[in-house]
C-alpha cells in the first residue's frame, strides 16, 4: 500500500480537477496517444499494454497537478483509473497533517 500522501500549503494549490477520473483518463490517454473516452476506467492500465514502469510516470503528473506526493507505485496498487481516482480523492479530502 502506498504511504499516505501529504498535501502542501493550500495557498499554492492549483485548481484541482473536479472530476479526477476524467483528468486521470486524460493523462493515461496522452501517454497512450489516444483520447480520454477511449479509456475504460475500470480496466487495469496494463491491459492497454502500458509498461509497468512507464505507468509510474503518472506520479509526476499527480504531483504537478494535485500537489500531492504519492508513491511511484500508486498505479500498481490502484491499477485502474477509477481506483486511482478514488484513492486520490480520499487523499485530497483528508485533513492536512499538522
Amino acid at each position: 500500500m502506498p504511504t499516505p500522501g501529504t498535501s502542501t500549503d493550500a495557498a499554492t494549490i492549483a485548481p484541482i480537477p473536479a472530476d479526477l477520473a476524467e483528468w486521470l483518463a486524460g493523462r493515461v490517454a496522452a501517454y497512450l496517444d489516444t483520447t480520454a473516452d477511449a479509456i475504460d476506467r475500470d480496466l487495469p492500465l496494463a491491459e492497454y499494454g502500458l509498461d509497468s514502469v512507464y505507468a509510474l510516470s503518472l506520479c509526476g503528473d499527480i504531483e504537478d497537478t494535485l500537489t500531492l506526493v504519492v508513491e511511484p507505485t500508486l498505479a500498481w496498487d490502484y491499477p485502474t483509473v477509477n481506483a486511482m481516482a478514488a484513492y486520490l480523492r480520499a487523499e485530497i479530502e483528508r485533513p492536512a497533517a499538522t
Partner: protein
Amino acid sequence: MRYSAFADAERLERALGDPGDPAAVFSYARCADLDDADEFPAEICRALDEFGLARHYVPVEFGGGLADYQDCLQTMRMVARRDVTVAVAHGKTYLGAVSVWVGGTRAQAERVGALVGAGVPVSWALTERAHGSDLLAGEVTATPEAGGYLLDGEKWLINNATRGAALCVLARTSAGGGPRGFGVFFVEKSALATESYRHLPKQRTHGIRGADISGVAFDGALLGPGDLIGGPGAGLESVLKGLQLTRTLCCALSLGASDHALGVATRFALGRELYGRGLADLPAARRVLATAFADHLLAEAVSVVSARSVQTLTGEMSVLAAAAKYLVPTRTEAMIARLRRLVGARSLLRDAHEHGAFGKVERDHRIVSLFDGNTLVNLNSLVNLFPILVRTADKGVEPDAEGVRAAATVSLPLAPARHERLSLLPRRGSSFLLGLPAAVAEIEALAAHDDRLAPLAASARTLLSTLDDLYAVIRAQPSVPVAVPTSSFVLAGKLAACLGAAEVVQLWLRNRDAAASGPNAALWRNGVWPTLALDRLLAAVGVSAPAPDSMYETAFAVLREQVGAGLLPSLFDVRLAEAGL
C-alpha cells in the same frame, strides 16, 4: 591520487600474488586451463572465501562488511581483472542476496547475512526459458499451502542455479500476475524435500565457460511462511530496486576486463618490433591505445561516481544505474574490439601471448552487456524516465547539490546506504543533469584564469548545448510507452552519454586539487582526462569535441608508465600484485 576505497582491493592483490606467476592459485595460466576444460574455478573461489570476499556482499547493518559500495566494486574489479569468469561465479552471491537487503525484514536479512558470510553461494532465479527479460510473464508459481507456499515451475539460464545452496526466486503469487502479482522467495535447498526440485544441465558457453550457467525446476517445493521476502506482491519492486544496485556493481566486471585487455594490448605494443621499429613507436598505434585508455578512464569515472551515488543520491539510482549499465559494458566491448585489431593475430592464438588472455577476456566480457538487464532493457528503463527527466529539467528543479558533491568527492567518507531510500523513479529528476549548467559555469570560471583549461571549457559548453538539444528532441517525441520506437532507444543512449559526461565533469571538479600532485597528476592537470572523456562521449552522441592531440599523447605516456610499473590503469594510484609487494 590515492583513494581509500582501493584499500581492500590492494589487500586482495597482496593475498593473491602475481597473476603472471603460474604457481599462484589465481593465475592467468590456471584460468586459461580451466577455461579450456569448461571447469568451474572452485579452488580459486575457495581462496576468495578465505580472503573473506563475501563479507563485501553483506551490508554492515546485517552483520557483514559492506559499508561502502565502492569498496565492493573495486575489490570485485580486482577479481575480474584476473578472470571475469571467477568474478561472475563468486560475485553472483551478492545478486542472489540483494532482494533480501532491499525488501526483507531485519530477521530475514540477518539470516541470509549469516549464510553469505559463512561462504554459502546464493543464486538469483529471475528468468525463464520462454520469457527472457520479460519478468512479468514468468510462469513459476508460489501457491499458499499450510501456512507456507508451494513452489512450482522452471527457472532457466541462472548463474549458479546448481552450485548455489540457496536462491532468491521470483514467483507468481497471484494468477493474474501484474506488477503486484509476484513475490520473491528465499529458498534453501537443504530445507526442501529432495524430490521437489531438480537441477537443469549446465549450458556450455562461448565465454565464461567455467561458470555454472544452468537452471532449476521446482515441483511442489514446500516453503515456510518466513521464506517470502516482503509482501506477496512486493517481488517486482524489490527486484527492480535490487537491480539498481547490481547494475551499478556490474561495472566492476567491465572495468576488470578493461584493465586486463588494456594491459595485454599495451604490453604487446611495447614489446612488438617489426623491421627494427616498435609498434608503440607508430603514432597510429599509440592513438589506438590512448583512445582505449580514455574510454577506460571515463568508464572508471562513471563507475566510481555511480557507486558512490548509491549512498548519496540513493533515490536517483533508477536513472544512474541504467545509464551506467548501458554505458560501461557497451563501451568496454567496443574498446576491446578496437584493441583486438591492434593485437592482431595474437588475439586469436591460445598460447602465443599471455596464455591467450586477450581472446578470452573478450569472450568472457560479452556476457556483461547481456545479463542483469541487457543493453536494451537498460535503454528502455531510461525511455521510461524521459517524462520525469524532461519535466524536472523544464521546471528547473533544484538538484541535490550536496548529494552530487558527496558522490563526486572521493576523499569524503560516506555513511552506509539506506536501502529504504531506493526508489523506482528519480522523483526530483537527475541531479547530475540538473546540476550541469552550474558545473559548466564553474569550469568556465576556472578557464578564464587558465588558458590551459580552454579545451575542457569548450567541450563542457558543447556538452551543455548537446543536452539542451537532446531535451528538445525528446520533448518533441510522442510518448509511446507501448511499442517503443528505435529512435527512442537511440535518444536514451545519447542521454546516458550526457549523464556520464556530467559525472565526469563533477569527478574532475571535486578532486582536481587533491590530484594535482602524485603519479597520475598528468591526467588531472589541465583537465586532460575529462577533456578526453568528453571527446569520446560526445562522439557517441554524434557531436564533435576533439581533444588536442597532445592530451592523447599525455594519456599514452601515463598508460605506458602504469602498465610498465605494475600499477592499475586508473585515474587513481593503485598497486597491483605485479608491482611487487
